[in-house]
């Protein structure tokens, strides 16, 4: 029982981590670009 629960948790965590990290990487890069563009306008 313990094995099944933790196997499921670890699989879900690893898959979630890979997918969400990819999303945050792409969208976070866009956030930096937006932020820098705003700072350049203000300068």
């Amino acid at each position: 029982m313990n094995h099944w629960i933790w196997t499921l948790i670890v699989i879900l965590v690893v898959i979630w981590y890979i997918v969400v990290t990819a999303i945050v990487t792409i969208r976070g890069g866009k956030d930096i670009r937006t932020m820098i563009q705003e700072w350049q306008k203000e300068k």
Partner: protein
Amino acid sequence: MTNFNFFIDGAIVLIYLAGTVTVGLWARKYVRNVTDFLVAGRSVNVYLGIASLAATEFGIATFMANAELGFKYGFAGTTPGVTTAIAMFIVGWTGFCIKPLRDQEVITLPELFNVKFGTKVRWASGVVIVLGGLLNMGVFLRMGGNFLTVVCGFDMVYLELVMTVILLGVALYTILGGMISVFITDYIQFVIMSIGLTMVVILLLVQFGWSDLLHTLDTVRGPAAYNPFLGDTYGVDRIFLDIFLAFASVMTWQTTLSRALSARNTKTAMNIYKGTAPFFLVRFILPALIGIAALHYFGTDRFSGSEAIMAMPHFLAAILPVGLIGIMVAAMLAADMSTNSSYMIAWSSVIYNDIMKPIHKGLWSDRKGLLWNRVLIGLIGIFLLLYGLWYPLKGDLWVYLQVTGTIYLSSMSVLLIAACYWKKANNWGAVAAIITGCVIPLSYLIFKEVEATRGLFESIGPYKFGVATYIATAVMMWFGSNLKFYMEK
């Protein structure tokens, strides 16, 4: 014994270091005033906030501490990750405390207390935050040095040199670029750290096999490895402390809070919290998995007691091939640099904004304010170096982090909740809570080192002390506030 190759792995690490420091230095040109320096001009969006917060709260010290929990307790050791992820999601979802805090547009937590409790409580809160924060951070550098020395195969006599080099690299771009540099370098560090960690976890699952790792846990740790409520290895008192600590840290830990305070608006701050919550679970489960693999590889004899923390670095040094070990070292350097830079700026912001407030009264020019913030970060760097060299960490690293964190988390969380939601709360209660929250954990740290009291304090243990601190602090806030209320009436 390590597979670290100075030409191949060393080149990977050098490219990463040069790239990060260059970007960090480049970003300094956008710093115009103290608000830019301390909260990046309050212009941070959700995904950058998530990347930065996830990177900041995952350093080498956390990595080693959490791998040690996996090595000692198996999956039960991930309990603090579960409690923190739940706490962070609840706080982000409801906006509990962080909504009123962000709405006030303050830079630090004590600044909010100024409105409710007055300037003296603001000052005292600043002192407690810096004291607890610096003691907590004091072990980061040594942990980073230990990890890198073992994984890269340096002679231990170079430990201090490794620590100094890490610190200089971080201090350089943090001093010049402040929070703007921290956010941009955090993003790079988030990406590198995620790639390195994922590759290592997949490699060890393939190399050792999931069922073999579980078999080791069954044989060595038994059912308690899967359930923290079973047996006496993890324990109920520790679970209670994890719950208190989780809520207190997501609401008041200045490095976490500074992401909410740097957010574009309150809704963005709440979304950053909700989005980062699962990363707090990941930061425990993946290192714990590496700790479990280290247990499978070494068994229990070689790294027992206080040596357990070194099992994971020795394990990585032994199993990672050339190339991957360079990526892993770069990943861990990334984790460490993002943590150190954010922590340095967080404590300097409190020193400048709250402790030095009676001196500058908010009247200094931006130029003078920036100069002082930079000097403070430099001084914090020197403190870290001296403390890291001097303090001999004994026992469980995570316990040390919890006890030192409790010095400020207990009183600050009580003050914050009272400031936001309790009309009757006043400065008498706040002062009583601050003193109580400080005295109990400091007494534990001091008296467990004194020969005459060691036995008694060790028999009570850090978890009961931690839980008692949170309860006593809340009681003193209630008592002090009511006392003043009825005295004035």
